């Protein structure tokens, strides 16, 4: 009652514009994880000038908020931002309380701009972006909404330094292209490892994009905290917080693919389409909150034999039994059936209509190929903030993938069970210690990989010590890996880094060791490829790499941020398919077969640059990113395959009242070298020059966006005989409650 009277009094005293028709008042309290009010918290409505701070007891009032659906953020130094959305009517006054989560960074630790994003991946704890010892790229919820992409890989693909090669993610050229086997990037979903248990690749359709709030991309070796697969970097998908009250969101997508630009390339007599619908509902009350997302998509594809159908679901539940304690359970399940475009047709593999190749048509030997892929994950997490100096987390997880291929006929079922216990302690002397242990058990049953198990245990610890303005970080992780019950590898992954603020930005330097254990598929695959038998190699050793980086993050007054990093990676024992001569036990003939072997040594170095500016205020945002990549295969003294030397991205967005327009341009230079040069070396390869355009309109709970990806209908490929997407028009309608 007292609060209502206070609000009424404040309303009465508010200036006239605050009571203007079409606006509302929002008030409430910002509380820390223990329930105490937080003073001096900053609250604002993104994209507007509306802003206020909390007073004593954590109370705030925000007047003049436009009616309709609004998002309000509470930002407190040292905590991840808290976000609430509300549907406001004219003259409404609505109470919105915010609850902060995680362990607070002591204010005396903070000497940098408090408008920086908080990240949670680089050190397995909350920290400001400029406090990370390695480079981190962010794809914020604003970026996701503005670009209105439909899948997670589309969202990650434009991050600085990131390039997808036919679905395989490369961070600073980490993975190259190996047909989905053995990603050198680790995927996390809310911090939980999510690479496939059998092939080690990444199912980017594992989690619906509608459930993702933001993405953090940590560059360079991350094995000192994350163990295997984090050889070249880590991508963490952070799912949406569940707000209090009843909320919903429905998103419908429809579009069409451009027809081939030349009649001689036409492969169907209709225009291919795509469409999708997803809906999210959430409800939160008191200590309990839950959300559910359901969706489906269909695509005719832009090439011959390229249809796909997908059904997806995701759920999340949160329970706060008492202040400082959070229990979260989250999961997703996706069923994806898609035709497989094997490789495009060249002379002798189909009727090329007098052409050397037909990029939209398939090699007829792959006719009828399709894949049914089911996948899902479940994770339960208990977070406990014991005091302002100590918090811990325990979690268990399960990941399952099941694919069935037709032509060639293969199948595999894989499970990965994981557990982690982690604590973060902080003392008054500026020391932060993160320590924990992670364990995983994987199993696979397959006609081409056999039946196998893999167990992993990895204790780790990392300490950050503040020495004056400098922060020194030292840590390490020790991983034991056992396959089918016998130990195969013990790997130590240390890391040391330093962050030093200066008048010319914040400098960072780090070196760390990364590794990737061979996947069960790489050890035990037994199949045929390119007409050759592929034979297993159970004695494979892990790939290892040392990463070095020196970087600087420079704030450009209030209108921009420049981040530049020089990096150098020395990799050893890289796994690659290799031709071997084997004596056939029956015929006694010496025949050539393919086997995965530890053969390559490689060097990757370069410059990673990103610039974000808002020269005309928040209405106009421009980004420039450039990656210079200099690679060497030290075994063959040649450039590494599938690593474009230059990657350049230019983006701009402008917002005027309810309307917005924007675009991205991406250039990647021609791939200089590919694998299997004798087979594919004669194929044409070009640089990629792709322009995406977008426009949007928002009014209250409704939003409409028009996207034109690859607007110039630039026809290109990044990997052999695999056409990249053509121009695609799509309209996305979103209704939010």
């Amino acid at each position, binding site marked *: 009652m007292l609060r209502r009277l206070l609000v009424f009094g404040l309303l009465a005293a508010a200036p006239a514009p605050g009571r203007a028709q079409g606006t509302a008042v929002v008030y409430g309290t910002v509380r820390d994880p223990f329930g105490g009010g937080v003073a001096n918290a900053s609250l604002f409505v993104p994209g507007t000038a509306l802003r206020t701070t909390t007073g004593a007891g954590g109370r705030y009032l925000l007047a003049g908020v436009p009616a309709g659906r609004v998002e309000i953020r509470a930002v407190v130094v040292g905590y991840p931002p808290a976000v609430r959305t509300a549907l406001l009517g004219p003259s409404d006054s609505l109470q919105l309380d915010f609850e902060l989560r995680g362990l607070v960074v002591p204010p005396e630790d903070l000497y940098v701009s408090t408008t920086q994003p908080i990240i949670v991946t680089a050190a397995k704890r909350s920290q400001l972006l400029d406090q990370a010892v390695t480079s981190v790229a962010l794809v914020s919820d604003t970026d996701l909404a503005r670009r209105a992409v439909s899948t997670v890989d589309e969202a990650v693909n434009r991050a600085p330094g990131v390039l997808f090669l036919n679905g395989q993610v490369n961070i600073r050229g980490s993975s190259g292209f190996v047909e989905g086997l053995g990603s050198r990037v680790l995927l996390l979903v809310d911090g939980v490892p999510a690479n496939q248990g059998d092939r080690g690749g990444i199912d980017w359709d594992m989690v619906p994009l509608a459930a993702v709030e933001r993405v953090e991309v940590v560059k360079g070796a991350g094995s000192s905290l994350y163990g295997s697969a984090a050889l070249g970097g880590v991508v963490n998908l952070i799912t949406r917080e569940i707000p209090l009250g009843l909320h919903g969101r429905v998103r419908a997508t429809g579009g069409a693919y451009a027809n081939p630009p*030349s009649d*001689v*390339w036409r492969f169907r007599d209709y225009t291919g389409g795509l469409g999708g619908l997803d809906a999210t509902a959430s409800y939160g009350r008191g200590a309990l909150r839950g959300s559910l997302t359901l969706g489906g998509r269909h695509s005719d594809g832009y090439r011959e034999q390229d249809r796909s159908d997908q059904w997806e679901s995701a759920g999340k539940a949160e329970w706060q039994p008492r202040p400082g304690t959070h229990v979260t359970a989250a999961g997703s399940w996706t069923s994806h059936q898609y035709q497989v475009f094997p490789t495009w047709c060249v002379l*002798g593999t189909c009727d090329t209509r007098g052409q*050397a190749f037909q*990029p939209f048509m398939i090699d007829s030997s792959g006719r009828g190929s399709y894949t049914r892929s089911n996948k899902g994950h479940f994770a339960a997490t208990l977070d406990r903030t014991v005091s302002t100096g100590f918090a811990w987390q325990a979690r268990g997880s399960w990941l399952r993938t099941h694919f069935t291929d037709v032509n060639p006929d293969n199948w595999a079922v894989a499970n990965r069970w994981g557990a982690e216990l982690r604590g973060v302690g902080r003392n008054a002397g500026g020391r932060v210690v993160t320590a924990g242990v992670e364990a995983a058990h994987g199993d696979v049953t397959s006609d081409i990989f056999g039946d196998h198990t893999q167990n992993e245990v990895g204790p780790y610890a990392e300490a950050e010590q503040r020495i004056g303005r400098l922060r020194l970080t030292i840590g390490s992780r020790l991983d034991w890996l056992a396959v089918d019950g016998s130990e195969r590898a013990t790997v130590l992954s240390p890391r040391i880094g330093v962050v030093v603020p200066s008048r010319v930005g914040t400098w960072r330097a780090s070196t760390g060791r990364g590794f990737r254990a061979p996947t069960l598929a790489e050890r035990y695959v037994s199949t045929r490829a390119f007409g050759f038998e592929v034979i297993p190699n159970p004695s494979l050793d892990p790939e290892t790499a040392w990463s070095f980086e020196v970087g600087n993050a420079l704030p450009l007054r209030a209108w921009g941020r420049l981040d530049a990093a020089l990096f150098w990676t020395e990799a050893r024992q890289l796994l690659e398919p290799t031709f071997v001569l084997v004596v056939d036990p029956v015929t006694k003939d010496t025949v050539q077969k393919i086997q995965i072997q530890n053969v390559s040594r490689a060097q990757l170095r370069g410059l990673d640059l990103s610039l974000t500016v808002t020269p*005309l205020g928040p209405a106009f945002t421009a980004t420039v990113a450039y990656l210079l990549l200099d690679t060497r295969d030290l075994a063959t003294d040649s450039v590494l395959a599938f690593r474009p030397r230059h990657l350049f991205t230019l983006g701009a967005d402008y917002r005027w009242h309810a309307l917005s327009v924007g675009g991205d341009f991406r250039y990647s230079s021609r791939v200089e070298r590919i694998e299997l040069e004798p087979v594919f070396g004669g194929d044409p390869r070009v640089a990629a*020059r792709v322009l995406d355009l977008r426009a949007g309109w928002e009014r209250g709970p409704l939003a409409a966006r028009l996207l034109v990806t690859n607007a*110039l209908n630039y*026809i290109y490929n990044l990997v052999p005989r695999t056409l990249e997407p053509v121009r695609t028009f799509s309209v996305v309608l979103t209704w939010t409650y």
Partner: protein
Amino acid sequence: MIAGMRSRVVCAALVAAAVTPACNEGLRPTTCPGICGTVTYQGSLPDSLKDSTAAVLIVAYTTFPQTPADLLHFQPPIPAFVDTGGPPRRYVLQVPNGTYEWVLAVWEKKGGSLGPQSADSLLREVGFYRDAGDTTSHGTGRVHVTGTGADSINFVIDFTKMHRICNYFPPC
């Protein structure tokens, strides 16, 4: 205000400058990536050959084969397979630039392993490109392949007028 407008114009110009080179530099249909032309059929495949026909293909030789063993060194390594009848069809031989002394259509018999000794029993010449002014015994027509390819190297295939390989390497 004017400064803001100027910034916007500069930004727009930068975007335009960046995307302009994107036009017309992607993959394009190839006009002729080597030797191309049309195959026309004179009649259809005789019934007597229907069961024994493995393939009809078009190959090229940089120099006219001097021995039966040279027959196996044709270009490209994967030849162009063509139909055994029907309407005129375009063919493409994806070969490197250079001069080719002999471009011909070959009928291949089913069964057997192709080698110098078996070439005469398994292969028949069923048409070749010939310069109108060429007077050599085997009717060589030189084909010069440049960066733009060599188009209109046309054949007429008549399965009733097939020639044994030994005609070119006597005695038969």
